[in-house]
């Protein structure tokens, strides 16, 4: 061991280059693994997590839909397989007021009283909810641990204190354990609120609850599935109107809250990171080979003195492994920094826990073994006699060494090409997700969301909401610099790939399930102008489009062109799909199509239908304001305008549309950055690799260059001598890499359908770029070889 250290200190250049390469390679992997570990591998912090399951509604369209309160109560009361079955949903539009402070937005976990027991956790302070409280609909909450620490500095006297939530008073009865501070699963949770699910006992239309259960000991998931299936059939029989096509699906709790796309991307990042490490290994193996040549005399002497080959190999290998362990330690520093960066981005601590440490250790040791073994083996097989006679010099040494180096370079180029194609595939896809014509203008636009308290504003169609909206719009329009303001139920930012079925008057009704779908948004007059959209035909909505006035609608251009090609859509009628009560609305205008700020591959529908918000008001609403000035400047004004109308509520996500978009995309942007870093690192390492090999070969052959020059070789001859081998390596490497890349892209197309459109140009472009860089990397040492002074290189010894 001491000897290995001494050897490494003896060649500081080699050692430093190797350590840096290793630090990056292993650091990148430790970082990717930390993310993977944090998101996928860490077991749930809940008691016996294997027996916690989700019970999803299952429709032909979607296998993970929520459940209605009516269904949940029936399932809870009829099943025999669960120790407990809880319902919950996350509400992040609630306004929370702490005495004497301004209203703020809160993220609230609304749940049944048995939610904490089902997960197997209990409050750290105070007590949990009781079923009595649930039956009596008591207004009680638990603080999240995070909120407790942040707003009350962990003060134990918060118990019994009152807060105002959604305009009503609630009492703090406890503090939730840290296990619930899991932003990735619940968001940044502030409160846990006892949900009065029984209020809606018979309600089966809306399915906003997630249902989670703890299996009784000895009950398997399959048994639970069988019983829930039977309950679903009974519900379908009893309530055919809502439940005919609903069944139930029992799924593990662990994987259900993360999307498969997320998994695919995380695994992809891990694989790409491993590819970078492989490239690093190739470089190190090459460096090692060069070093073995320089040490061949020392090794030959050792062998001549009777050391066994195995011993020599062991000695060389221990140097490699020592080196890679040091590199791995440095890599952990790099990973720590990268983890903090990722953590800050996602608001989610990404720890270097024992698993990551173990991974880094194994990865380092394996790396050392991988890049050290073959060179050590070759060195230990050296022909002792020849080496000693030669005095370590001469052109005929190491044919197998050179061949191995060439194989390594070909492998490296192929890996680099695959890496770059994989990264390029995502980077291009992400670029396309983020940069596209949206059909609306997010600049100079500020938006906020409001949830009006049910107690004061009622549900759909309540007159009080209408009055509120008129006051708010007028208040917003009077703010300085504001050009227009509007209210709507949806925003183009989140134009989601989901739609409602609709019917076109005078058309035969399509089969059930095959109706056309449109994304429906209810908007006030001025919405289109506020969003920078264009009314292409007909008119915008007017104040006169109110309850009692005829039903009207505005449709998107593509919808009009699809359903009334060559006809004037104005005056045509669209309605619901219920043939008994179609509820026709007359089309009064056509606007341009919009897409959301994140354009993913498959939209359920390209069509949009707008209806007058005033004809169908609702207490969940979004307001938007267009200014000529900096959109940040109206945020405060908008907050005041809202407070003037309704002091008890806060707007959530009150921010310029651009900021919100960027916020929504931060995850994607981070993924893109990680991929950028990997692609760059991979490219850099493989460029260094091929440059290093050609440069080293050129150095080893300076004497030969001199001879050739003396014999009349021109600089073009000398250059070609080295370029030729570089070109052969580049062509072979990129040829193999291209084949593998085509396979990779085909696999990715099947795997990650979120990325829109496949792209043969990525492969072609990456292939060409890599080939050019490889040739450049050969050309530089080849060109330098022509600068060899023959008189110097020929001075024998």
């Amino acid at each position, binding site marked *: 061991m001491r000897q290995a250290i001494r050897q490494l200190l003896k060649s500081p250049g080699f050692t430093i280059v190797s350590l840096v390469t290793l630090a990056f390679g292993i650091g990148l992997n430790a970082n990717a693994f930390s993310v993977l570990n944090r998101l996928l591998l860490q077991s749930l912090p809940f008691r016996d997590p294997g027996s916690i399951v989700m019970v999803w509604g299952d429709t032909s369209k979607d296998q993970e839909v929520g459940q209605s309160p009516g269904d949940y109560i029936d399932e809870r009361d009829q099943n025999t397989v669960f120790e407990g079955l809880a319902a919950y949903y996350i509400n992040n539009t609630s306004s929370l007021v702490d005495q004497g402070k301004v209203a703020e937005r809160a993220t609230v976990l609304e749940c049944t009283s048995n939610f904490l027991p089902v997960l197997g956790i209990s409050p750290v302070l105070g007590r949990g909810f009781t079923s009595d409280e649930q039956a009596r609909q008591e207004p009680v909450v638990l603080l999240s641990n995070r909120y407790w620490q942040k707003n009350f500095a962990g003060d134990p006297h918060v118990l019994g204190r009152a807060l105002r939530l959604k305009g009503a008073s609630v009492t703090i009865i406890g503090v939730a354990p840290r296990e619930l501070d899991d932003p990735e699963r619940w968001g940044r949770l502030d409160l846990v609120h006892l949900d009065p699910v029984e209020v809606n006992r018979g309600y089966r239309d809306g399915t906003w609850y997630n249902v989670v259960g703890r299996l009784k000991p000895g009950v398997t998931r399959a048994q639970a599935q069988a019983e829930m299936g039977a309950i679903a059939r009974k519900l379908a029989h009893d309530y055919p109107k809502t439940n005919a096509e609903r069944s139930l699906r029992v799924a593990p709790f662990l994987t259900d809250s993360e999307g498969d796309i997320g998994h695919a991307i995380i695994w992809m990042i891990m694989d790409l990171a491993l590819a970078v490490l492989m490239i690093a290994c190739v470089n190190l193996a090459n460096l090692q080979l060069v070093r073995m040549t320089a040490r061949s005399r020392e090794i030959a002497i050792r062998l001549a003195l009777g050391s066994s080959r195995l011993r020599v190999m062991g000695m060389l290998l221990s140097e490699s492994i020592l080196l890679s362990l040091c590199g791995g330690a440095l890599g952990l520093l790099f990973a720590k920094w990268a983890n903090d960066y990722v953590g800050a981005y996602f608001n989610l601590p990404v720890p270097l826990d024992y698993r990551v440490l173990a991974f880094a250790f194994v990865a380092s040791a394996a790396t050392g073994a991988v890049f050290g073994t073959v060179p050590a083996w070759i060195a230990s097989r050296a022909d002792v006699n020849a080496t000693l006679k030669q005095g370590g010099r001469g052109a*005929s040494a190491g044919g197998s060494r050179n061949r191995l180096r060439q194989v390594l370079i070909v492998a490296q180029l192929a890996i680099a090409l695959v890496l770059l194609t994989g990264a390029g595939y995502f980077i291009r896809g992400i670029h396309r997700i983020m940069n596209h014509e949206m059909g609306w203008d997010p600049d100079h636009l500020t938006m906020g969301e409001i949830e009006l308290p049910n107690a004061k504003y009622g549900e759909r169609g309540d007159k009080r909401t209408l009055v509120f909206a008129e006051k708010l719009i007028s208040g917003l329009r009077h703010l300085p610099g504001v050009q227009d303001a509007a209210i709507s139920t949806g925003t183009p930012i989140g134009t989601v790939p989901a739609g409602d079925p609709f019917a076109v008057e005078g058309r035969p009704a399509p089969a059930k399930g095959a109706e056309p779908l449109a994304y429906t948004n209810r908007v006030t007059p001025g919405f289109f102008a506020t969003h920078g959209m264009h009314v292409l035909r007909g008119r915008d909505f007017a104040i006169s489009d109110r309850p009692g006035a005829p039903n009207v609608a505005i449709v998107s251009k593509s919808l009009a062109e699809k359903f009334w090609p060559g006809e004037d859509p104005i005056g045509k009628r669209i309605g619901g799909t219920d043939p008994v009560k179609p509820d026709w609305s007359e089309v009064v205008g056509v606007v341009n199509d919009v897409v959301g700020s994140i354009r993913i591959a498959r939209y359920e529908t390209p069509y949009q239908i707008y209806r007058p918000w005033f004809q169908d008001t609702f207490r969940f609403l979004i307001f938007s304001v267009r200014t000529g000035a900096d959109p940040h400047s109206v945020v405060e004004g908008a907050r005041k305008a809202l407070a003037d109308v309704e002091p008890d509520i806060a707007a959530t996500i009150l921010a310029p549309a651009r900021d919100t978009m960027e916020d929504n995309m931060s995850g994607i942007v981070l993924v893109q950055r990680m991929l950028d870093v990997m692609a760059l690192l991979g490219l850099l390492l493989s460029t260094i690799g091929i440059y290093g090999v050609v440069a080293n070969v050129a150095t080893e052959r300076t004497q030969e260059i001199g*001879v050739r*020059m003396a*014999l*009349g070789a*021109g600089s073009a001859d000398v250059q070609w001598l080295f370029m030729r081998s570089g070109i052969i390596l580049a062509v072979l490497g990129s040829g193999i890499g291209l084949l593998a890349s085509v396979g990779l892209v085909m696999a990715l197309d099947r795997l990650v359908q979120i990325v829109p459109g496949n792209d043969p140009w990525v492969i072609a472009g990456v292939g060409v770029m890599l080939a050019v860089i490889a040739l450049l990397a050969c050309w530089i040492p080849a060109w330098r070889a022509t600068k060899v002074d023959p*008189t110097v290189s*020929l*001075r*024998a010894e």
Partner: protein
Amino acid sequence: MENQALPQSLLKLDNVTKVFLTDEVETHALSGIHLEITKGEYVAIAGPSGCGKSTLLSILGLLDTPTDGTYTLNGRPVQGLTPADRARIRNREIGFIFQSFNLIGDLTVYENVELPLTYRGMPAAERKARVEESLEKVGMGHRAKHVPSQLSGGQQQRVAVARALAGNPAVLLADEPTGNLDSKNGDAVMDLLQSLHRTGSTIIMVTHDARFARHADRTVHLFDGQVVEESAAPKD
């Protein structure tokens, strides 16, 4: 001038100097060299180590350029030629033989000898004839397929001589061709040069061994970068 009356001058150095600049130190490797060599001559350059023999040979072989003075090869001044022109002249007019043989280890004997012809762009059939002819001349025809590491030092040097001959150059430049050989092999190489000289080759050979200088028509003695003496060998 009565140029026509004199034997034709092949190489002519006029007041040639070579100064090396290393780390601000000037080394005067050659100063004021006058040298004229005619076609068919066998000239030895002798002198102690470091006196500038190899430098002189490099300049004669167009591997290096003089700091000052003029060099006329075949009646044509060579200063101001492009590197490509110089490479072409080296290839056609000059054959090098080195002390350490300098065969290319990855190439066979045949390919080594063929190399200067390849740079000349000669057709393969003609190359083959020339390579075989010159290998025969040095008695290495039967080793064409071997690689240098399979040959002894003396054999390697004979291959090097064949390589220098293959292009049919105007002059052979040999820098201590026997320096890496034992006396038996050294003598064999000297005999080979002697016989080449007899068939009309112009040879300039650097040596610090007076015994070998004897073979030459004329010996130029260098000391400290200057010609100190010229002596003609006694004709036997």
